[in-house]
């Protein structure tokens, strides 16, 4: 029941915020939203402390620390089946944490229709939490599509019309159509899987646990796996299906970007770990080289395009493409090191990209531009913001001692036995990452300030405390990642054991 509440709390909070604006006042929705997300965060952290996250699978069947099931549409064997293991827990904590940040960072940025804004933000967060908990494929799909609508509104109604871009409605519509259409392909694959299962057993069910052991021919398995893969690849985003991401980011409000980069991209990686690999291990193993090459292309292409960007948010967006390439490689390498690295990388990227987007928002609030060519010399005009931005930029480039390094290092370490060539090529991404991160810092902050430029208002205590929390967490993740690794170990071991058996069958021996 606590799992259901984790989903419902943001939904209820959103409704309260919407109605509260009219009844109480304009500032009210912010407090309601902040309170709601803090409660959700507190619950998820509390679950982390009290739960036992090391349950090993029994006979190849995953074990869940917390589980909830209620009947929904028995005609098709659909139920509200929610469950939480270490992987879900970490991502739920990340979602709720970044949710708090997203509410906090739009405190001053959003000044019209505050209530409706927070309704959309909280509903989106609630749906994402649901994705991380759903164990019924129908429910998963419903939530997968559900999160799009509020995100669409966030971009379309509170976005910026960045100069040179095609406008926020264009970006929002593109985002929606890309994800919705690929989602429908996933629906076809889900139904295909259910019908294959039905033909074998005579039972119609969408339950993950029942479908896990479905036997199917290699061709069918490959087709169904590709159906899932398309949806996840669009969301990851994998080059060449990434073109919605820079547009969406450059037009989205800060909270939308934090949400998009920090959380939404992780749903795709989660989907691969939870659904693609365990449901279709053989096809995934056979497909792994292709997916990993796409990952390499993404790393290189994303990093390369970063150089060409003039808009800070587009730059950070392309760096996300690059970082998610590592995640793709790690997932399909499938060794325990690589999978653990994927988890850390997801958390670290969520924190660092979220922070960079918040900082971009702060700069935009003060300079009213996000173009690097109009910046330069900011170091002299702010005392705090530039060093903080430098911190997150070097976190993003993977400096040892910070979370991203742990993730990327584990991924590369784990991928080496599977495919050394890909690992070598992927590690060039670290170098490219260093270059573009430093270019960002150099172009924005260094150099002489323009003549007569007034000093800018520096970060306030709200902004500083947000940054401090994110910095502490990134350092903690970099120096002592063991609690995180322990939490996700059992879940990742489960994925690994299913997947490695298939790898052995297809001849890819790690």
């Amino acid at each position, binding site marked *: 029941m606590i799992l259901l509440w984790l989903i419902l709390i943001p939904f209820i909070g959103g409704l309260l915020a919407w109605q509260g604006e009219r009844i109480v006042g304009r500032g009210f929705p912010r407090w309601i939203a902040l309170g709601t997300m803090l409660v959700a965060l507190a619950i998820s952290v509390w679950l982390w402390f009290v739960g036992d996250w090391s349950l090993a699978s029994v006979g190849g069947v995953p074990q869940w620390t917390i589980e909830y099931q209620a009947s929904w549409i028995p005609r*098709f064997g659909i139920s509200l089946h929610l469950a939480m293991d270490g992987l879900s827990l970490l991502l739920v904590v990340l979602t709720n944490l970044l949710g708090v940040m997203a509410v906090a960072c739009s405190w001053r940025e959003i000044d019209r229709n505050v209530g409706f804004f927070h309704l959309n933000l909280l509903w989106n967060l609630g749906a994402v939490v649901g994705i991380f908990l759903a164990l019924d494929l129908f429910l998963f*799909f419903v939530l997968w*599509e559900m999160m799009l609508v509020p995100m669409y*509104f966030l971009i379309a*109604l509170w976005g910026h019309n960045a100069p040179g871009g095609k406008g926020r409605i264009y970006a929002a*519509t593109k985002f929606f159509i890309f994800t919705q*259409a690929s989602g429908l392909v996933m629906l076809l694959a889900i139904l295909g899987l259910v019908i294959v299962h039905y033909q074998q057993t005579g039972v119609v069910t969408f339950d993950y646990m029942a479908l896990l052991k479905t036997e199917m021919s290699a061709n069918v398995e490959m087709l169904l796996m590709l159906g899932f893969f398309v949806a996840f690849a669009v969301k990851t985003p994998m080059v060449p299906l990434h073109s919605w991401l820079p547009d969406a980011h450059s037009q989205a409000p800060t909270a939308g970007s934090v949400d998009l980069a920090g959380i939404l991209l992780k749903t795709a990686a989660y989907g691969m770990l939870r659904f693609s690999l365990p449901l279709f291990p053989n096809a995934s193993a056979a497909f792994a080289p292709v997916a990993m090459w796409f990952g390499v292309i993404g790393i290189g292409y994303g990093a390369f395009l970063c150089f060409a960007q003039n808009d800070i948010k587009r730059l950070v967006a392309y760096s996300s493409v690059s970082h998610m390439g590592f995640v793709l490689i790690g997932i399909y390498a499938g060794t325990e090191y690589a999978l653990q690295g994927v988890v850390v990388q997801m958390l670290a990227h969520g924190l660092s990209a979220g922070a960079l987007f918040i900082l971009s928002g702060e700069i935009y609030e003060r300079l009213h531009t996000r173009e690097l060519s109009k910046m330069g010399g900011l170091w002299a005009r702010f005392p705090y913001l530039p060093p903080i931005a430098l911190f997150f930029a070097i976190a993003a480039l993977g400096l040892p001692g910070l979370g991203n390094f742990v993730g990327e290092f584990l991924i590369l370490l784990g991928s080496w036995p599977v495919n050394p060539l890909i690992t070598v090529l992927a590690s060039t991404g670290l170098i490219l990452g260093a270059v573009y991160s430093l270019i960002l810092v150099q172009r924005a902050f260094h150099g002489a300030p323009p003549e007569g430029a007034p000093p800018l208002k520096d970060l306030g205590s709200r902004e500083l405390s947000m940054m401090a929390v994110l910095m502490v967490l990134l350092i903690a993740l970099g120096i002592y990642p063991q609690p995180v690794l322990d939490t996700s170990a059992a879940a990742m071991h489960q994925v690994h054991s299913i997947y490695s058996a298939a790898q052995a069958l297809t001849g890819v021996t790690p």
Partner: protein
Amino acid sequence: MSFTSELFTALSPILALSATIVAVMLAIAFRRRHTANATLAVIGLNLALAACVALIWTAHPATIVTPLFVVDGYAQFYMALILVATLATATLSHAYLENASGEREEMYLLLTLSALGALTLACAQHFASLFIGLELLSVPLYAMIAYPVKGHRPLEGGLKYLVLSAVASAFLLFGIALMYSQAGSLGFSEVGAYFAAGGTPIALVGGAMLLIGLGFKLSLVPFHLWTPDVYEGAPAPVATYLATVSKVAVFAVLMRYFVEAGGYYQASLVQVLAWLAFASMLVGNLLAVRQNNVKRMLAYSSVAHFGYCMVALIAGGPLAVEAVGAYLLTYVVTSIGAFGVITLSSNAGGERDADVIYDYRGLFWRRPYLASILTAMLLSLAGIPLTAGFLGKFYVITAGVDAHLWWLLGGVVVGSAIGLYYYLRLMVSLFLLDPSKHRFSAKLDWAQRSGGIMVLLAMILMLVLGLYPQPFVQLLRIATLMPG
């Protein structure tokens, strides 16, 4: 044959509606009073609906009433659906015509007459009743479309519908005649047995002509050309009726024809129909993208929606009837809501309906709940989960996957993606801030009026269908057909 009470019970919805027609006609002849006449029609429709619900509730067994009619679970379900949609149209008409000048009362007479035709179609198991029902459904519609007789567009729409509908009827009749010449009977089951045993090319040509006639009513591509003009010209409540009742009734009889009269045995025609469905999905959606007129956009989107629905019909198999029922149910609820909002924003006194996208700009900041309803309805038309439209699309895709219709499902996916574009375009304009003044807005107290209450009910029903569809799924399972 003698009429027993059993038969009267089975036929009670049709009888109640017939009595209503007479009563409304007499009432108009006696004294013209808009609200009183509308109320009378609504009471009659409610009685018919109550009779229908009673039949479903008591699980009244399938009854054959003369060779022309059968009242089985399938017929009961569609009669109820048709009556609900007609009721919605009646309340919307009342809201719409309130400020109109001229004769307003005949609308309810025409509406109930047309609904009688629709009920006939739902029960038809004979080509004669099919034809009578179809004509009875269409002829009052000519007048309803052209009801604001002083307008240019309504007259044009009405005339267009009249001419093309007559052509379609001619095709239909000729097709029926050809089938009769081969099968020697007009009953669905006899014709079904004939097709099951093989069938000649002449009978196949007959089947094709029948499909052309019905395809016109369903506005499948390439028989869709009338749709946008007629929807645009028709007064908003009549457009609601066109989009819901007239299509649902025709689809119901088409489904019965396929299951009972051997439509599925004509494999080559099923193949052709698959192409028509594919074309409808793509062409309907692509043409809708270019529209700035909301009614024209919804017209093209209905072309696409009946393409989706056709996929379920083509899939055949045990799930097809249930899937078609689910799709039509969800489509009707959603269309009533969407057209309902348009109707409430317009009124017959104005020179045109509120049907340009620009009229809806910023509606959310003027009428938040009304705009929320339209948003939800558009999301439902787009098939986003937790709305009714998703249930329908889910059923269609399930039926399609079950029958391995991969290329048609590809059409569904591509069509939905294109569809999103124009639904979103209208949806986001509801929320944009708008500097200019507006000629069109629903009355402030819209929610307290019958039309508004009806739209609210449609909204609630739509959400229930999306969130907890199980009771409706049970209902759909009653409405099955057995191949004859």
